[in-house]
């Protein structure tokens, strides 16, 4: 059997010894864990020690791209990294798109890169047709992700893909991220700091080996029907013109179109949600900003910025440093309250912390990135601040889940009010509060339940589960008409499928995919026989392993105290269908139903022996 899709090699990097070696990709494991995210988790399972300090040399980073990445299937750009993250202390997935990195990693001949140890000096990892090499990166240290991408593009050629960190990562700030190809960010929770702790500035990839498919005729036939469907999508042109601004029109359309320099798409993506923006007038006129989306650039307007140009400027400062925008603003809100209560004092020359002031936010972004003055304390993240200041600080801390601020919900950056799978997912994903893995039809508010079965079928939800998720009006017993806890299990499986194959998880894009098609495409590309039940089982295996990886680190990831009180105070979250105020027992019931849907033990919330046996994970 010829196995297409996979590049066929794994790169092992020991930065302490400055050694690289390569081994064949274990196709047995690939078959059982699909690839991409699934294989990242599987390789990480063996290599990330329980309880290890995320910023120690013992922590491991597994980077990889799924078997569909590098083909011309739509939106197959995804790059994943798995590591123990400093903000949460848990092992978590980090995902991003990107134009070239995932594709070029595979073209250089590698499915995954596994990085361990700590280099003695700043280095970069160059992965090319000729193999891999650890190189001096001193001149790049201190550069922004965008400048690093540009410098490495010059050195390795314009088609090189780059994953790199900025100064925030170099200074090991637990809410720093990595950047990919100057268009995307990777690693909320502190992947930037993990790479910084290893003195690894960048991974650059370029190659000409190509990505093959196993069953060409089947592939072309599937692709032809698939592309016809995409090209016939009536809103495609509008998406291409407006990107995420179509869903979140935060500034007038005309203003956006005037600022838009060009849209940028990840590799082979029909939507193209990334933006290059040029500020057309005012201050700072002419500034050009690359971003993962115009919507991200405008986020500070939620905090009270009056002028969209200020928002763009401040977010670009955060991107240049490599700071997580949501966590930065949450820390700033906390810092403001700490100052107001006199728990901390600003140093000489440090301005008032004002979330609605661009000048204040720009100053504090710099102060944190450099770890200067009060910024040094704030740069430790919520966990470090609370550990330093103790009980008084705890009283004014915002909602936290596993030590991070949930960015969607009442009192958060994204003031979503209805409680769907993405909102519950902030509690149930072991990586900490992230909505990325919880996608479902509840992504859109007030969707009529009549359309749910169609979407659930697309996600590959079995028919018997659809009946449990939508028990109907006559269910009685206080059962809601939509069972969010049960649905979330299938969101996680769907995310595992998309992530493991390498397909973007954005709703605007994955709407074109369905689970049946994913199984067919996976089989056509890899040659590994796959039907829908088989795909589902492998996705279950992936997520169950992810759950197991975090079992040894302090019990259930969603213990009761993790539910933020703020979610239940007026105005708090509301139930998705009836829109009545949500209560803590409601969410606790959803968590039990989530466990039950998985078949996990009700008391421990962990998979039982039977489940592990069925999924072939018993030996682990």
């Amino acid at each position, binding site marked *: 059997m010829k196995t297409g899709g996979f590049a066929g090699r794994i790169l092992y990097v020991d930065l302490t010894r400055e050694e690289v070696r390569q081994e064949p990709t274990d196709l047995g494991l690939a078959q059982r864990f699909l690839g991409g995210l699934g294989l990242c988790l599987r390789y990480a399972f063996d290599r990330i020690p329980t309880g290890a300090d995320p910023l120690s040399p013992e922590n491991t980073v597994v980077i990889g791209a799924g078997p569909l990445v*590098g*083909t*011309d299937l*739509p939106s197959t750009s995804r790059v994943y990294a798995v590591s123990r993250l400093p903000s949460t202390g848990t092992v978590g997935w980090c995902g991003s798109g990107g*134009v*070239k990195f995932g*594709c070029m990693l595979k*073209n250089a001949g590698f499915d995954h890169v596994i990085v361990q140890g700590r280099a003695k000096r700043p280095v970069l990892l160059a992965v090319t047709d000729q193999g891999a090499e650890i190189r001096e990166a001193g001149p790049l240290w201190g550069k922004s992700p965008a400048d690093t991408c540009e410098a490495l593009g010059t050195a390795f050629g*314009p*088609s090189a893909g780059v994953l790199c960190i900025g100064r925030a990562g170099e200074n090991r700030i637990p809410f720093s991220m990595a950047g990919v190809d100057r268009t995307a960010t990777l690693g909320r929770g502190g992947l930037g700091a993990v790479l910084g702790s290893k003195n690894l500035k960048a991974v650059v990839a*370029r*190659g*000409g*080996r*190509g*990505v*093959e*498919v196993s069953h060409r*005729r089947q592939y*072309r*036939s599937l*692709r*032809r029907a698939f*592309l*016809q469907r*995409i*090209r016939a999508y009536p809103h*495609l042109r509008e998406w*291409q013109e407006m990107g995420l601004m179509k869903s979140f029109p935060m500034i007038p359309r005309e203003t956006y179109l005037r600022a838009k*320099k*060009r*849209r*940028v*798409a*990840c*590799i*082979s*993506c*029909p939507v*193209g949600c990334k933006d290059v923006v040029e500020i057309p007038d005012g201050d700072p006129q002419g500034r*050009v900003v690359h971003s993962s989306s115009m919507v991200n650039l405008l986020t500070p307007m939620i905090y009270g910025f009056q002028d969209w140009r200020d928002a763009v400027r401040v977010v670009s400062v955060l991107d240049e440093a490599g700071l997580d925008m949501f966590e930065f603003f949450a820390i700033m809100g906390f810092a403001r309250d700490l100052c107001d209560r006199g728990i901390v004092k600003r140093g000489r020359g440090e301005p008032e912390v004002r979330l609605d002031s661009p000048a204040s936010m720009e100053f504090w972004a710099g102060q944190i990135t450099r770890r200067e003055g009060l910024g040094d304390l704030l740069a430790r993240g919520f966990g470090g601040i609370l550990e330093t200041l103790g009980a008084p600080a705890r009283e004014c801390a915002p909602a936290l889940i596993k030590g991070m601020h949930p960015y969607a919900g009442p009192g958060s950056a994204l003031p979503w009010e209805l409680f769907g799978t993405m909102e519950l997912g902030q509690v149930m994903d072991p990586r900490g509060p992230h909505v990325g893995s919880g996608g479902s039809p509840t992504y859109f508010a007030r969707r009529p339940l009549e359309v749910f079965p169609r979407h659930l079928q697309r996600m590959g939800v079995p028919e018997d589960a659809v009946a449990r998720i939508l028990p109907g009006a006559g269910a009685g017993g206080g059962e809601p008409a939509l069972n969010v806890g049960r649905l979330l299990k299938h969101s996680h499986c769907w995310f595992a499928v998309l992530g493991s194959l390498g397909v973007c998880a954005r709703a605007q894009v994955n709407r074109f995919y369905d689970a049946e098609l994913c199984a067919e495409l996976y089989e056509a590309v890899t040659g590994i026989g796959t039907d829908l039940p088989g795909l589902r089982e492998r996705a279950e295996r992936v997520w169950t392993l992810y759950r197991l990886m975090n079992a040894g680190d302090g019990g259930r990831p969603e213990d009761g105290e993790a539910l933020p009180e703020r979610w239940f105070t007026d105005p708090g979250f509301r139930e998705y269908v009836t829109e009545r105020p949500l209560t803590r027992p409601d969410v606790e019931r959803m968590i039990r139903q989530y466990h039950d849907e998985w078949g996990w033990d009700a008391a421990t919330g962990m998979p039982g022996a039977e489940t592990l046996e069925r999924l072939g994970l018993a030996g682990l």
Partner: protein
Amino acid sequence: MRQGGSFQGKRILPRSWFNRWKRFAEEYDGSREREAVTRYEILFFQERCTGCLRCGLACSEIHAGIFCPDRAYIEVLEGPEAYSVRFSEACNGCGACADSCFYDALRKKPVEAEP
């Protein structure tokens, strides 16, 4: 105009090879026109290009049998203002890049072959 597996009346491909190529062209989306007209002038509309590299993937699939932007006859370059494209001398104007573009940044215009 080149027809079938012949050029200027001389057969240049065995029939079975030609049929295989023809089937391939038919299976590739939007490329049926290539049965009658095999060469195109490729037009580039830079304001529509998003740099997604799909053109390079399509080109390398047709001409190298693998997906690999570095093995394509079209190269997408990012400039300060916009993207640009560069075709290598090996490009035979097959039009696969234009067929593959989601954004209509590449379009193809039939070129009449010399008699």
